[in-house]
């Protein structure tokens, strides 16, 4: 059964320097409050795993928490670049960032393999692309390999399983025994939690009973390590039924993140001081 604790305690106990951490939520339900708590607790040398690094990892990367990023699309959706991510890759600021890059389908299948307890997943993908070809030539993505189907002889692609130390997600609700319920765009969060050794789930509210919702994913409390209430914890992304996406924040982030000084000031004023 999940322990219901404060967000600070959940991060303190679940996430350690050097861990591989997957904070998931596909545009919807991105666990920003938890990400900023990790910055506040000054975790270092993390391997950050996420399909779309989005602003949450731009913040963590800029704050120097990450040693490595495993991802599939690193932009500010509808706006442009993630400037802190680019500065780390192009200029090693504030610290060098190793990257391991996949397509969305590759990342999604890697989580599926991790959740399924098998070492790899198979997909029809990567053939002819730079990520696939470079690998054949000793390229930069050791987790992508061609594989021959034992039944048809076709060449497909194997991607190795993701087995993070910790998954971090945000959900709409949990009950008092730590059963978690999320709905709307559910992304890859179920797979991320089941693939990981530990998990932290922040929720909008903790309720006595989870009444059914159409299309909801339910994670039984015994699959979750910590639940912490963090109302608005997905902001500037959103929690369907509780909040709407703050598109203005995504647009405004471009100017904050573009410059090291404005970003550092943002960190000091919005993250290190108090709770945002």
């Amino acid at each position, binding site marked *: 059964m999940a322990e219901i604790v404060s967000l600070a305690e959940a991060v303190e106990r679940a996430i350690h320097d050097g861990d591989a951490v997957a904070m998931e939520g596909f*545009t919807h339900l991105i666990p920003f409050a938890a990400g900023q708590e990790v910055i506040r607790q000054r975790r270092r040398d993390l391997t950050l795993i996420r399909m779309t690094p989005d602003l949450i990892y731009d913040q963590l990367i800029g704050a120097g928490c990450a040693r490595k990023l495993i991802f599939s699309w690193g932009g500010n959706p*509808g706006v442009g670049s993630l400037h802190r991510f680019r500065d780390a890759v192009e200029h090693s600021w504030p610290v060098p960032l190793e990257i391991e890059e996949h397509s969305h389908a590759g990342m999604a299948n890697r989580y599926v393999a991790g959740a399924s307890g098998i070492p790899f997943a198979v997909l029809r993908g990567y053939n*002819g692309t730079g990520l696939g070809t470079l690998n054949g030539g000793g390229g930069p993505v050791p987790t992508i390999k061609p594989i021959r189907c034992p039944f048809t002889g076709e060449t497909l692609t194997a991607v190795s399983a993701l087995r993070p130390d910790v998954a971090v997600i945000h959900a709409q609700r949990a009950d008092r025994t730590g059963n978690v319920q999320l709905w709307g765009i559910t992304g890859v969060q179920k797979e991320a939690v089941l693939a990981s050794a530990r998990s932290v789930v922040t929720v909008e509210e903790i309720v006595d009973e989870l009444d059914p919702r159409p299309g909801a994913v339910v994670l039984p409390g015994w699959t979750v390590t910590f639940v912490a209430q963090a109302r608005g914890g997905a902001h500037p992304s959103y929690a369907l039924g509780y909040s709407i996406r703050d598109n203005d924040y995504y647009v405004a982030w471009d100017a904050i993140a573009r410059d090291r000084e404005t970003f550092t000031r943002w960190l000091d004023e919005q993250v290190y001081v108090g709770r945002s």
Partner: protein
Amino acid sequence: MTYTADEMMTVSAARALRDGMTCFVGIGLPSSAANLARATHAPSLVLIYESGTIGAKPDRLPLSIGDGMLAETADAVVSVPEIFNYWLQPGRIDVGFLGAAQIDKFGNINTTVIGGDYGSPKVRLPGAGGAPEIAASCREVIVVVRQHHRSFVERVDFVTSVGYGSGRGDRERLGLTGSGPKKIITDLGVLEPDPETLEFTLTGLYPGVSASAAKERTGWDLSIAADPEIIAAPTPAELDALRRFQGTHARSHH
């Protein structure tokens, strides 16, 4: 009515979609065009976004592929592994609608790195997202991208998504099940693959755009079809619908 080059491009791209098609939509220009098509001549167009929303019916332009409006108006919302494995990979989707940062004469797309080498690029772009599998598995692909000699190149710096590789036979050799890019729709006109070589050739121009202007804004030696079609200017109805959408988009994030 006067109109901008971007409006002409979006209208032209919308016209490429037929009613009743299923369309896997990338964000940005492709999303504007697909939504315009659904608002005008293709009300039964099925919009599918990689966030897992199937049959989304947005009434304003989403800023991201995960906007709540997409989930709330969809026929079905599925997980991300499911949208790629069950819906895209088997070739169920008629058309993939993609953008590009760099594209070459065989329609290969780069959204990964420009300049330098992969390990130390001059410019780091967002990366692959859903595009490689959209380009591989949709029955056909349409690319919507502004034309510039630096982004329309002989050979992309990095193949993020495969068009025709290095020419005829490559898609079959690579085992890609979709038939590949059928049109590149730009702010100057339309390029289509030569039936023999599969090299992209200028086959359509917007009113007032010259073939020599299109050649100047192409980084490879662009072939021009014998008699390029002059594509009709946007109708007032198309412009009204597009501006109504873009107005709501502007209001939704400013």
